[in-house]
């Protein structure tokens, strides 16, 4: 180890990997992973979220987690985005491609992707 910069580089690289254990992310993305969710393809959706969040360097800010059945099985895969002080956003009939857009526009850009939300699709 010859310089502080070298140490800092290792730190930044590793922080993304251990941020998962922090659990104090400002935003929580929860993917419904009960039998209905898995059958409808929730796993690739979950993977897409994890991957995209890491690619964008959001791991310290966003916690991607999973949950059981939310109760609207016909709309699976269901994804909820929770942020302190804001109303919960429920995305339905998700795909990995839609997940990438949610990461880009909502998690990173702060703008809800209304075309995928439950309120919009269940109308």
């Amino acid at each position, binding site marked *: *180890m*010859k*310089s*502080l910069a070298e*140490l800092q580089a*290792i*730190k930044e*690289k*590793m*922080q993304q*990997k*251990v941020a*998962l*254990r922090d*659990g104090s*992310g400002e935003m929580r993305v929860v*993917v*419904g*992973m*009960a*039998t209905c*969710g*898995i059958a409808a393809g929730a796993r690739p959706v*979950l*993977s897409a979220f*994890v*991957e995209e969040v*890491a690619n964008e360097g959001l791991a310290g800010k966003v*916690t*991607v*987690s*999973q*949950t*059981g059945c939310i109760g609207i099985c016909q709309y699976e895969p269901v994804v909820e985005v929770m942020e302190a002080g804001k109303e919960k956003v429920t995305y339905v009939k998700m795909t990995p491609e839609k997940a990438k857009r949610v990461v880009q526009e909502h998690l990173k850009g702060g703008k809800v992707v209304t075309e995928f939300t439950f309120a919009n699709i269940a109308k």
Partner: protein
Amino acid sequence: MIRAHVLICGGTGCTSSGSQKIQEQFIASIEKYGLSEEVKLVQTGCFGLCALGPVVIVHPDGTFYSMVQPEDVDEIVSEHLLKGRVVERLVYSDTGEEATDIDVANLSLNDTAFYKTQNRVVLRNCGVIDPEDINEYIAMDGYAALGKVLTEMTPQEVIDVITASGLRGRGGGGFPTGRKWALTAPNQADQKYVVCNADEGDPGAFMDRSILEGDPHALIEAMAIAGYAIGATQGYVYVRAEYPIAVNRLRIAIDQAKEMGLLGKDIFGSGFDFDLDNRLGAGAFVCGEETALMTSIEGNRGEPRPRPPYPAVKGLYGKPTVENNVETFANVPQIILKGADWFASMGTERSKGTKVFALGGKIHNTGLVEIPMGTTLREIIYDIGGGIPGGKKFKAAQSGGPSGGCIPASLIDTEVDYDNLTAIGCMMGSGGLIVMDEDTCMVDMAKFFLEFTVDESCGKCTPCRIGTKRLLEMLNQITSGNGTLELVDEMEKLCYYIKENSLCGLGQTAPNPVISTLKFFRDEYVAHCVDKKCPAGVCQDLLSFIIDKDKCIGCGRCAKNCPADAIVKTDYIAPGHKLPSYTIDLNKCVKCGACLANCKPGAIYKD
């Protein structure tokens, strides 16, 4: 892409309750459900709640599973990791109050009563990082303090920060760490040393072991900082061979630090060299004494030597040496990074920062807790420790192991710090806290610790070698019913004689358990000597087992189980019963207690 981390405790406590098997099972189950690419297994150091081991934590949810058995693992993997459903029956849910209102599925570790009141500085990485991966330590600000010290600070500035923080030695004595360094730094020599005392010998204390097992790099970093501050280029960690997991992780950590150039030549391009090695001790209690420890590192029999000269002047191999305890060192990087003021903002007037306690004895949550100095004993025992099992009454807590003293129930609101404990004739010691309930006999407790020090006395000086032996004989006389009040007085005199005349800390503190129990529980000594009774019902020689003839239903289970044939049938039939009652022939009774254990109606009692 990894989306979940499963943290399995690999501390000594959980290892002995089977965490290795749990880990193997996890590997198999994760493979079986095809999650190898998504879930990472991490073996960590101690989480602290050893009573509930083996402990498993699943992130990002932070779900805390306790007492996990190998057969539970498949369920955790298939339900939680695959389907996102928390296995509620395994979740630790003791939140202290209104546990029923708590959403168990969302309960994270930090919400539990055990963790809520803790303030983790020394243990901050224990149970969080993989101690065998230096990169994870670096992610948690590891080695940043060493970098800061070597590139921005002079040795004197380092000493000033440590002095200003008010950090005092955590091994027991409470000597100001900054002053120790300041006394060593100016002494000129061709070689100086930094030594870490990891010879944790107090029965019931295991915080140093847990730091070595859970966060070994914190120690390595701190020792390098100390080396820079005092001008030493070589360090030794003296750790007992009885701690195999700690020794192994320390070895791995030292190797990784060397490989990365965080130990060795020209660290951070500053021109500062520091090398570190470990030395294994054979587990003698006296080797926790600083001069005996250094004698042992030198390859000699671990015996203390007279001070002065102090190690700051003539220590290891006759060279100026700083010796600190593991927990003391573990505070250092945090102080450097966050500043002396931050550290001094925690704790009391003269005891700054936090202290790790090993809770043991008659308490629900046995384990490791870290709390700010000045927390009351009541909070430690009832809020964090979860109180005393079986609704029993708190009697006293022994602090500081065989060198310390007891804190009686009347002083339960004492704010625990160095000076308050010294004021009541007790001592902080290394932080072992053994809780005793009403069923503990204080004379017997003192005897237990004396037996330990008699075994562990190195024999170099007479007051300790012979004095502690005589003291133990006197205690044996008292517990066997042959004591007198004169003997108690004589014993007290001997205590002070040993204290004042012994060569090292072992002998000087050995009589403490007797002195402090005499101070707070003299009535128990009197009861043993005058009434020939043991009030707690522990000392066998002073007990009689008696059958209450009116409660006895005449079943005969006691007589059948009596190994000495001391129980016989009488002619008396109690009102309301059909069979004649039994009685114990006290001349034949061997006081084994088998009758009491087998009496269903509870007709037998100890007196």
